[in-house]
């Protein structure tokens, strides 16, 4: 019944405007201006303590420091590739911090900020990009799925998981991450159709960073992405993706709505990828430096720093301590990455199935015997 009611309610000239939990959508939800001034949004009031604000800043700064170090390590030949989150810290940390303990997140390959917010050790992410494993963390324990490289595929996983949650009668919600380019993928659209039809407790969190590698947004869509949600029959909202407070508030509201059985929400976090798509990409070939300079003025970390300083929430000593912590983190990441042991060749057999099958066990034995046949053998 909920699904039916929603489907009829969202038939409205202003898409998403009649969503019960997101009434009268503004074009862009913003709680913190690029200059660092708090603005009130009655629909998304955020009661947040100074301690929480400082903690958000710390997350943003440390995640960026990690990203910078990882980019450098790739340039030094220590990582095979790195997908930088530079510029998207607020969207990721805000979304990650909106999750409740039991909520499950399904990331793309760029959600380092969400991984950080979920308590994943950066080295467990680095190992994936160094090519020594497929992601070192326990997705069940961290409530954070492994990175998905296939564009948009995780939206189906998230919707399926959410439908499972629904059948379990659990109170958890699911957060599916995707990019602007992924909205053109069939899987994403299928996931949204199912999520809407079954009012699955899933929130689609789209970081619109303006480019699908080199393809600009205007090649992906003729309308603002958040308005697409109306076509599927659930509310869509656009939030300033460089405003960690707005992202936190909007994502929290959407997850809460999902938990309460009101079905999915599409969140378009309007942001900008300040770096390259990955370290294999050269953005100067397809976009102007002036565009980047423009977005630097909307830097997600600078605006929170300005807010904290201006309102006396944090002093210079605090910022210095965060910087120092960042350097320690970077040093730990550097050492840990460089010293990461290569996996034993036969370890690739270990995580194919939860329980090893006899044919696979036989293959593993044969593989190990083959390697052992070389002079001196190989390390196990």
């Amino acid at each position, binding site marked *: 019944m909920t699904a039916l009611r929603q489907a009829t309610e969202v038939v409205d000239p202003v898409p998403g405007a009649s969503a019960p939990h997101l009434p009268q959508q503004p074009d862009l939800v913003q709680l913190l201006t690029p200059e660092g001034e708090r603005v009130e949004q009655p629909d998304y009031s955020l009661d947040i303590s100074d301690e929480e604000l400082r903690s958000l800043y710390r997350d943003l700064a440390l995640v960026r420091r990690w990203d910078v170090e990882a980019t450098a390590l790739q340039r030094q030949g220590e990582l095979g590739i790195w997908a930088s989150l530079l510029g998207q810290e607020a969207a990721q940390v805000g979304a990650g911090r909106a999750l409740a303990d039991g909520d499950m997140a399904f990331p793309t390959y760029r959600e380092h900020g969400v991984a950080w917010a979920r308590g994943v050790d950066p080295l467990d992410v680095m190992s994936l990009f160094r090519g020594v494993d497929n992601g070192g963390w326990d997705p069940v324990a961290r409530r954070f799925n492994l990175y998905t490289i296939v564009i948009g595929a995780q939206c189906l996983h998230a919707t399926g998981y959410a439908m499972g949650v629904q059948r379990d009668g659990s109170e958890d919600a699911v957060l599916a991450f995707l990019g602007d380019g992924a909205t053109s993928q069939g899987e994403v659209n299928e996931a949204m159709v199912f999520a809407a039809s079954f009012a699955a407790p899933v929130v689609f969190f789209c970081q619109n960073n303006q480019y699908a590698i080199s393809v600009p947004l205007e090649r992906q869509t003729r309308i603002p992405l958040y308005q697409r949600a109306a076509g599927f029959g659930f509310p869509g909202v656009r939030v300033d993706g460089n405003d960690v407070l707005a992202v936190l508030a909007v994502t929290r509201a959407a997850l809460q709505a999902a938990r309460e059985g009101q079905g999915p929400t599409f969140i378009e976090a309007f942001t900008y990828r300040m770096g390259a798509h990955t370290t294999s990409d*050269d953005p100067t070939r397809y976009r102007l430096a002036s565009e980047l300079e423009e977005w630097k003025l909307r830097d997600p970390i600078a605006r929170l720093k300005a807010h904290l300083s201006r309102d006396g929430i944090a002093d210079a000593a605090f910022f210095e301590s965060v910087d120092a912590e960042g350097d320690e983190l970077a040093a730990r990441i550097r050492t840990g990455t*460089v010293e990461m042991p290569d996996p034993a060749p036969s370890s690739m057999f270990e995580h194919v199935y939860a329980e090893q099958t006899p044919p696979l066990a036989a293959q593993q034995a044969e593989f190990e015997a083959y390697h052992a046949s070389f002079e001196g053998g190989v390390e196990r």
Partner: protein
Amino acid sequence: MGALKQFRLPDVGEGLTEGEILQWLVAVGETVTVNQPLCEVETAKAAVELPSPFAGTVTELLFDAGTMVDVGTPIITIDVGGDAATAAPATDEPAAGLIGGSAPGGRTAVLVGYGPRTTEARRRPRRSGQVVAERATAPIVLPEADYGSGGSERPPLLATAPDADTKPVRHGGLEVGRQAEAHALGGAAAPSSQAPQGRGRLRPLAKPPVRKYAKDLGVDLAAITGSGAGGVITRADVDAALAARGAGGTVLRGSFGAENGTPGEREQRIPIKGVRKHTAAAMVASAFTAPHVTEFLTVDVTRMMKLRARLAARPELAGVKVSPLLFVAKALLLAVGRHPMVNSSWDEAAQEIVVKDYVNLGIAAATPRGLVVPNIKDAARMSLAELAGALADLTATAREGRTAPADMAGGTITITNVGVFGVDTGTPILNPGESAILAFGAVREMPWVHKGKVVPRQVTQLALSFDHRIIDGELGSRFLADIGALLHDPGAALAF
């Protein structure tokens, strides 16, 4: 001297094998910190800065800027201090092709430059030294803080917030990109003629017609500063460059190549043989034995073109091509019936004129081997459908180069369809042994007086050359006029 470490060129993309060192950002003797940019490298995928993996003093730059270096090759040696006895680079190095030297724990990182590789770096010409040269003069802003030495200092490469005095984190060749943009936008720094050639600009900007224009005139676009929006070179720029060159410089002769060199070097000598030799002999024999007269007639063939469309729909003509040439052939055959003398030949030896009761209609055909004139035997007895089929067979056979000598012998009169080349008319030379040849020009829509008004009509030109020994002007004129009348009003055939 302390321990020396070498940094090998990593694979900064995925699966790259080489990169070009665009410029060094450090010099020998300079102290570097971890992650301080050492150099800028361009690969097939991107231009990027390589940050230092070591802190220490630069002791050697192993390649000059502008060198192509294979992935896995050491490019810089850095003295990282400590005990010199620990290792010298030569002995410390792992097998060639492995990257990163020895890492803590005694193992070797092998992410980059898989497999042994012993090839030397090689030089290649720089695409453009301009930007790099300009950048080299610009001060490189490098943070002085030693990485990790003090918690309060901002580490190199990092900008937690983009302050005015801090260099931003640089992904890719953003700095280079800005330079290129500055040039492209016609910034102040574009005074020299080579300035528009920023790196990444593989060729000067100009629209295709201007490109062609410059090429035809032999003007090198790379030497021109564009005055159009975004530095685009305009036609006026090309004209100006040409004028400037004309005042004292040399102008390349476009596609004709350099001006020096003897004439023989710029000529091609083709042996006269085959079809060319045969054609030449026939043309000479014809032109210098039969006195030619050519007459012209311009005809409104609109009705013929309409009839053509109607006939093409008839079942008896299904499957054959109803072309304008088919109507010309039919008109000529009908006209020959009224003026048999045009279908004759001059027998010099017998001192007789041979008038033929049959028409072997020759059709001049352009083939890969040259001009051939096969003929349709006894064409006057054919129905329109048969004639159409014969025409199609003849041209297809000729184009495939399979025309038999017998097909070309015994012709009595010929049509040359110059219209297919978009030509209006010509003065054809008689096929030897024949007395008349008709040139059929292109059918064009032209302004034409029709029923007292100038209206667009389908118009073509006919040219008839004939042997004046046999055919007088009167006969030739009547023959041509009859063909014209039949093409103008195909219904006139009923009166023939």
